[in-house]
């Protein structure tokens, strides 16, 4: 009789139209406990991550770097001492730059940062190209256009102005 009573009780609770489950049955309360335990662990973890992570990450985050921004500078050499075929790598503020007195007799000046992975490019007089030694990227010395190798984009141009006395001024484009 007892068995019958028990089973009927179980049936009754399973068919309970409101709750659906018997919240006092061991399985249910176990899974509920596990669920709440899990939530607390997850919540606690997230909280720790946030509370611990925020200050640590902010502490490590680089502050806005003090880039030496230069908009204009006088080049170290006069045009007279800088004949055709000559080139020079120099710093324009904090960016590496490259000035070339190219074969057309024109002065070309570029930001010398390779568009591939940031190495500094240089002029190769014998081949008349701008070359990046890191992965063999090549650029046109007149236009800065990428012509061979991995670089995906042209070099960024700067501007070179020549005064009447031959003084060369480098400016941002």
């Amino acid at each position, binding site marked *: 009789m007892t068995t019958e009573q028990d089973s009927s009780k179980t049936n009754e609770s399973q068919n309970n139209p409101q709750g659906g489950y018997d919240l006092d049955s061991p399985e249910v309360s176990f899974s509920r406990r596990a669920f709440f335990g899990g939530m607390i662990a997850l919540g606690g973890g997230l909280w720790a991550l946030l509370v611990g992570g925020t200050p640590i990450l902010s502490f*490590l*985050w*680089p*502050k806005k*770097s003090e*880039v030496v921004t230069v908009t204009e500078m006088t080049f170290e050499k006069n045009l007279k001492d800088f004949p055709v075929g000559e080139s020079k*790598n*120099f*710093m324009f503020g*904090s960016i*590496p*730059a*490259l000035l070339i007195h190219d074969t057309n007799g024109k002065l070309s000046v570029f930001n*010398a940062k390779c568009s*591939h*992975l*940031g*190495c*500094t*490019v*240089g002029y190769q007089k014998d081949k008349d190209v701008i*070359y*990046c*030694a*890191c*992965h*063999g990227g090549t650029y046109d010395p007149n236009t800065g256009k*990428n012509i061979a*190798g*991995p*670089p*995906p984009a042209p070099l960024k141009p700067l501007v070179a102005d020549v005064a009447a006395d031959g003084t060369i001024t480098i400016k941002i484009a």
Partner: protein
Amino acid sequence: MSIPTLKNLNIVQTVVDWLDERVPVKAAVEFAGHKEVPVHKHSIWYYMGGIAALFMGIQFATGFLLMFHYVPTFEGAYASVQAINMQVPFGWLIRSMHSWGANVFILVLFIHMFSTYFMKAYRAPREFTWLSGLGLVGIAMVFGFTGYMLPMDEIAYFATKVGVDVAGESPFIGPYLAEFVRGGSEIGQVTMNRFFTLHVIALPLAMMGLFGLHATLIQLQGISEPESIQKLPKAERKYEKFFPDFIKKDVFVWFAVFVGFMLLVTMRPFGLGPQVDPAAMAPIGIKPEWYFLSQFQALKLFPAKILFFDGVHVAMVFIGTVFGSLAVVPILDSTGKIPFISKFATVYGVIFLIGWLFLTIWGSL
């Protein structure tokens, strides 16, 4: 109560007993005594892990010494390494050991990795041993990369530039990641602080932790036998005691390797390139250390654009997938019960090794 007389007092026994009550020494010795190492024609590869551990020790010791003279500043680093090389008594020796040691360490790790791969030692229950080993190789390479920058010679500067820019090409977080690693938009003192801290604090801790796990797992699970040996009847399989038989040979191998290493280190002291000039173009023929040559060559080979994608991105996905596969393929083959996958893992390993060697040699030309 009998007072121990000098005659019946066994000092060693007493000390051991005293200690054993506090630290389970007897259990440890007992454990080591039971441990056996398989003896067969592939046994030689069992020494590689020990040799790698030896070089890890050499790196920790020499690195620790170098820190007494090295100056981690953007301006002063080069001069300090130069002084270590030329003025500090035996500085050249310690630095040569550290720089050569890094190269040999990684070489030995690669040999250890490939030998365990081909012996299929990664199979259940040793998956975590494999993965932790892979993690150790990864940490060793980051060690190499960060250590590379510290002397601030030409190659240091451009290798760092390229390495960080590669990270900067990662999807979505790339630019933030590069900025974070560099500590700004250009390589400078902040970058140096970051690399130095990683190199001397974070990476050593990570390596010790992971090595602890790796070594513990090996102790717990015993040394794996290649399939061909497992198949042999019990009577034909030979073993030797780990302690003292294997250890004796291990120490001898260490000694021999160390002597060879010291010959290399003293006959060919590790040099220092010209000081970096941030304005100057990257020197023609610049190359990373040999263990990055395969990635370097791959970066060179991918053109600017592939269909709609940037070549760099495709190259990165390619490099990432290939190296990531070293974590995936062994796990697929972990049961060793599926003949097709088992075969595939072997063939894959051979292709990987040949491809890697090919790109590395090509990159060095």
